[in-house]
């Protein structure tokens, strides 16, 4: 899909910014470039769509040398997202999303349809299409920035620290959304970042660069287990290396697989009885296929007991859940950051498979400290 052959970039006669770089990126791969500032990661990315010209060597996109293509055509065929978002302030969201379509002279109906189709991908209402960028929050703006890159359905997307300027919670949400989107759409992504957590979380492979050269190219797990040299170790930081092992533990392995649930259609009275019997103050609600639909806590029952008779009338549908394949480290981080008491665990079909509560985490910590031949060690052993 994307190949770098002996690529060198030199400014003037000085030291090369990128030196003799060789790399092959497969279709559908999510590759993170990371390194200290000035290591040449952004230069490398910008050479792909010819924002910067290659001094020596060749870059091939789908087997074709980019030097032999018209730079304008090339840029229209490659998505591009930048940290500063760069939405056109005088254009509506609709016009912004289909900007490349406008450049490619699409018909108006085609642009309209494409804009509506895309905005659904990021769960924003269609009314937003007629708004202007300054009326949206930073996170929403960057969602639009990503959609703009997707508009002409390019197989390859370049991203230059796209989530770097967002607050941590928005960044988390966007990273997850985007990773999901990338899997669904099977895009090849070149993603430049200086945030190691981001690279470890998103990348299928991580390219660590220093002084214009590649230091290590590997999967996140491999990099954590076998850092190539001291520089990589230092760059990862001691914390992450220590966490390297539990990092591969998934929530699926530690969750409690028998959460207290009720089916949709249960009466409130039955739900209360269940709460009392099981000694819990909230219930997860699933439908007949075991798909997670919402939750119910004692307070909402209290407030609505007289008005409603079944659980779906009172339940809270805006429920935060975690996939069973996600890494334990991320999940813990999220539970703590959101201040949640528990988080339901779901599979790919959003079916409920378990629950992680603060008590689960406390047990985990306890077991780690006292190391009592407990399940945690089994998990680590299992993971290895």
């Amino acid at each position: 899909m994307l190949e770098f052959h002996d690529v060198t970039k030199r400014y003037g006669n000085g030291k090369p910014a990128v030196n003799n770089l060789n790399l092959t990126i497969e279709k559908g791969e999510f590759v993170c470039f990371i390194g200290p500032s000035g290591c040449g990661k952004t230069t490398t990315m910008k050479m792909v769509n010819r924002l910067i010209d290659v001094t020596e060597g060749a870059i091939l996109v789908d087997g074709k040398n980019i030097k032999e293509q018209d730079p304008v055509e090339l840029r229209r065929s490659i998505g591009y997202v930048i940290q500063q978002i760069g939405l056109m302030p005088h254009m509506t969201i609709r016009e912004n999303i289909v900007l490349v379509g406008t450049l490619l002279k699409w018909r108006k109906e085609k642009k309209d349809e494409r804009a509506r189709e895309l905005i659904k991908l990021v769960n924003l209402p269609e009314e937003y299409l007629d708004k202007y960028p300054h009326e949206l929050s930073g996170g929403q703006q960057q969602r639009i920035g990503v959609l703009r890159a997707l508009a002409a359905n390019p197989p390859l997307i370049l991203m230059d620290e796209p989530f770097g300027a967002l607050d941590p919670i928005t960044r988390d949400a966007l990273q997850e959304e985007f990773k999901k989107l990338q899997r669904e759409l099977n895009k090849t992504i070149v993603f430049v970042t200086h945030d190691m957590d981001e690279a470890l979380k998103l990348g299928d492979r991580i390219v660590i660069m220093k002084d214009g050269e590649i230091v290590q190219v590997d999967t996140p797990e491999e990099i954590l287990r076998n850092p190539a040299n001291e520089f990589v170790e230092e760059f990862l930081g001691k914390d992450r290396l220590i966490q390297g092992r539990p990092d591969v533990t998934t929530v699926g392995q530690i969750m409690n697989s028998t959460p207290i649930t009720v089916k949709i259609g249960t009466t409130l009275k039955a739900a209360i009885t269940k709460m009392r019997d099981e000694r819990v103050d909230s219930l997860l609600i699933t439908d007949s296929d075991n798909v997670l639909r919402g939750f119910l806590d004692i307070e909402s029952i209290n407030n609505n007991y007289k008005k409603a008779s079944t659980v779906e009338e009172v339940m809270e549908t805006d429920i935060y859940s975690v996939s069973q394949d996600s890494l334990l480290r991320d999940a813990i981080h999220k539970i703590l950051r959101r201040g949640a008491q528990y988080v339901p665990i779901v599979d790919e079909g959003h079916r409920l498979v378990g629950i992680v509560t603060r008590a689960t985490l406390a047990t985990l910590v306890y077991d780690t400290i006292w190391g009592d031949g407990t399940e945690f060690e089994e998990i680590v052993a299992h993971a290895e």
Partner: protein
Amino acid sequence: MNTLEQLVQYVTQNGGYIWVQFYRHFLMAAYGVLFAAIISIPLGILIAKYGKLSSWVLALGSIIQTIPALGAMAVIMIVMGLGTNTVIVTLMLYSILPIVQNTYVGMKDVDKTVIEAGFASGMTRFQLLRMVELPLAISVIMAGLRTALVIGIGIAAIGAFVGAGGLGSIILTGTNATDGTAIILAGAIPTALMAIIADLIMGWIERKLQPIKSSKSSAA
């Protein structure tokens, strides 16, 4: 009171004449600014793109601005003779600085990240100019035209000295007549009014061209 009565009397008797001069005056100012805009807007864009030229061009514009209008007009008259053309050329010279300067500032103020995003999305240089830079700079450029037009209306009043007519000629008649205060006022008040109205209208257009809109106003 006497002056006021005389003014009313002059205006009623010469209403048509004042109107003709008013119109002529306005056309001179408008043409001057128009021709200046044709030269200055591209020049402003050019110096915004090629930074090295900017200090030279802006300095030249400032120098022109320091020459007294009457003196400049007299010199141009030597070359171009009497009449409206001399006034229009003078006005043009005086409009160059505000228009070039505002075009330059407007273009420079366009967010670099927006330009990068547009360029990386596959816009050609010309598309970038037409779809991004000009729409975002247009209200600042309009502010330059507004300044130029208001200055122009003032300078056009001197045009009477080179036989170009306009409201200046009414003022001139007043200064030559014995007890001509009323006639001077009949020329000066419309000149001032024209400048104020031009300023208001151009200000309105400038606001209409504000690139960053709200969704509500666009729905209306």
